[in-house]
């Protein structure tokens, strides 16, 4: 939309025939998903439909029972070295930030930098960490605080700063606006758009937040019945014939968000 992708055809994430199951419970069955370079893809689905499991599978945190997952051109099931190469090019924001509680915010942001670029001089590393902390809209004083001293919204921003520390190409966000007040959530949406424009990110975004979907997502993928029911631009997905999709996009909350999104854009 904004930044011109270098390879328009390239799929950053390519999931084929994914099958995940916990004991007898099948979460995913024959799930296919593509994420295109430079887009913000919103992944929605009911509670327990396996959104987080999908993210964990794509990140290589959970080996799937069947299927192939290709991230940035690398098969993630091809051993540890492929996965560790990918770690440098992907950033993850977990639901509550998942900051290391014994480190200050700045030290948290420095962790991925010193892991992936151990040769970087400490002064530059500190400057870079401070830059990221301010880029996500936190003040410099927040950098010296421990995660337990921050509010929920600040922890999410700090988690985002850590996810962005080494300029990943692909960013995974697990419900980034859940638990934020509407103003904070809107500010977070705006921040994502700004950062995407500045850093040329591709974003894989799990959300329940209809406002976020209407405000910033280029495409939406709906998970249901263990697979992707439909994916595409919101205008197409809205009119997909499926009970859950219809209830989701045509409930009272969706109508309000839709109007707000149209008015905003």
């Amino acid at each position, binding site marked *: 939309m904004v*930044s*011109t992708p270098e390879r328009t055809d390239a799929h950053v994430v390519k999931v084929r025939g994914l099958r995940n199951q916990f004991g007898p419970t099948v979460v995913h069955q024959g799930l296919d998903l593509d994420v295109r370079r430079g887009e913000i893809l919103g992944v929605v689905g009911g509670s327990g439909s396996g959104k987080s499991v999908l993210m964990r599978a794509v990140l290589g945190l959970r080996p799937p029972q069947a299927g192939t997952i290709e991230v940035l051109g690398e098969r993630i099931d091809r051993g540890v070295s492929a996965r560790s190469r990918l770690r440098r090019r992907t950033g993850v924001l977990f639901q509550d930030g998942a900051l290391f*509680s*014994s480190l200050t915010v*700045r030290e948290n942001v420095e962790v991925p930098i010193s892991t992936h*670029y151990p*040769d*970087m*001089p400490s*002064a*530059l590393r500190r*400057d*870079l960490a*401070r*830059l*990221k902390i*301010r*880029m996500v809209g936190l*003040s*410099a*004083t927040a*950098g*010296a605080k*421990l995660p*337990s001293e921050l509010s929920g919204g600040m922890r999410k921003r700090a988690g985002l700063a850590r996810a*962005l520390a*080494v*300029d990943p190409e692909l960013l995974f966000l697990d419900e980034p606006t859940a638990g934020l007040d509407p103003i904070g959530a809107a500010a977070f949406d705006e921040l994502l758009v*700004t*950062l995407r*424009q*500045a*850093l*040329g990110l591709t974003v894989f975004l799990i959300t329940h937040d209809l406002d976020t979907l209407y405000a910033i997502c280029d495409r939406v993928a709906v998970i249901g019945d263990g697979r992707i029911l439909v994916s595409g631009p919101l205008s197409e997905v809205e009119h997909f014939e499926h009970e859950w999709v219809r209830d989701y996009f045509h409930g009272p909350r969706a109508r309000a968000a839709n109007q707000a999104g149209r008015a905003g854009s």
Partner: protein
Amino acid sequence: MSESPDIQSDPDRPGQLVATGDWRIDTVGGQGSPFGGHSGDCDALDATGVEHLDSVGALLLVQAAEQAGIAPEFIVLRDEQRPLLEAVIAAVGDREPEPDPEPAWVSFLAHIGEVTTSFGGGFKLFLGFVGLGMESLVRTLFRPRQWRITSTVHYMEQTGLNALPLVMLLSFLIGAVIAYLGATVLREFGAELFVVDLTTIAFFREMGVLVTAIILAGRTASAFTAQIGTMKAREEIDAMRTLGLDPFVLLVMPRLVALLFMLPILAAAATLAGMAGGMTVSAFSLGIGPDLFMSRIHETLELRHYLVGLVKAPLFAAVIALIGCLEGFKVTGTAQSVGERTTSAVVQSISLVIVINALAAVFFMEVGW
């Protein structure tokens, strides 16, 4: 493609700096800020020759421009890289100083002060907790509805049955060591037979209960703290309160009652195991057979010895359970705090057990029991 980043002054245009190459974290990462040295007399930075730019590169460009006396807004670069540079300039722009951490000696002194004041407060808190424990015990004693039998039995298994092999093994070994020690000294007087007296008195009066209490202080107090602490951190305890449940009755009482039952039983098992250790050593290296050993025990042992040991068991059980639970309630929410509280629970309960045992020993000696 990945040319290393560089800044040169332009020979054709004086006062112009030209940046070229690949300004990305992979290429500049190891270098720090090597792009200085162009200070003062420059007025423009042309970065259109920069192939790739990421936020580290942009940060270094801005730093280099500032060093050369150029306002970062005047860096010229490709259009697609402009949003990134602007975002970086905006973030670098508001230069709030990061507050300095206080010097180490100040925080060291502050820590000493904190520990000193918290010592008194902690003791008061513990006494209050003991009072609460006794009150709840008496109150629930006559209300069988409030007895948490299932969870009490669960903790009996966890703290008692599961600890039995460990307690018996360690007591057996300690019994063997005491017998050896006694034998070495008593042989000089030709009084090897008194090894039996030594082992018997030691285990029935002191060691059986003490060894058990120390093992449980390490094993059970820490478990209680971690269990309750994690619940505290996840707001489960607040949830109980809002549901009108008393966390003390629900969490502390079953643990306290379980330990009050199990510690005497474990102590008895430890005493028997210790005697078995002593008997084994006597039989194999002193030539005192089991029959002689047993008859000597009959001559030495009186009921008061066993009672002196046994009377301490409930006291130790209460100390271990209450300290373990109290430290759990003190957890504040971070993983680190769970660790700190667990350490503190083990240290406090072991120390208190040994102190109480010493005081009791002096008391019983003076009274002549």
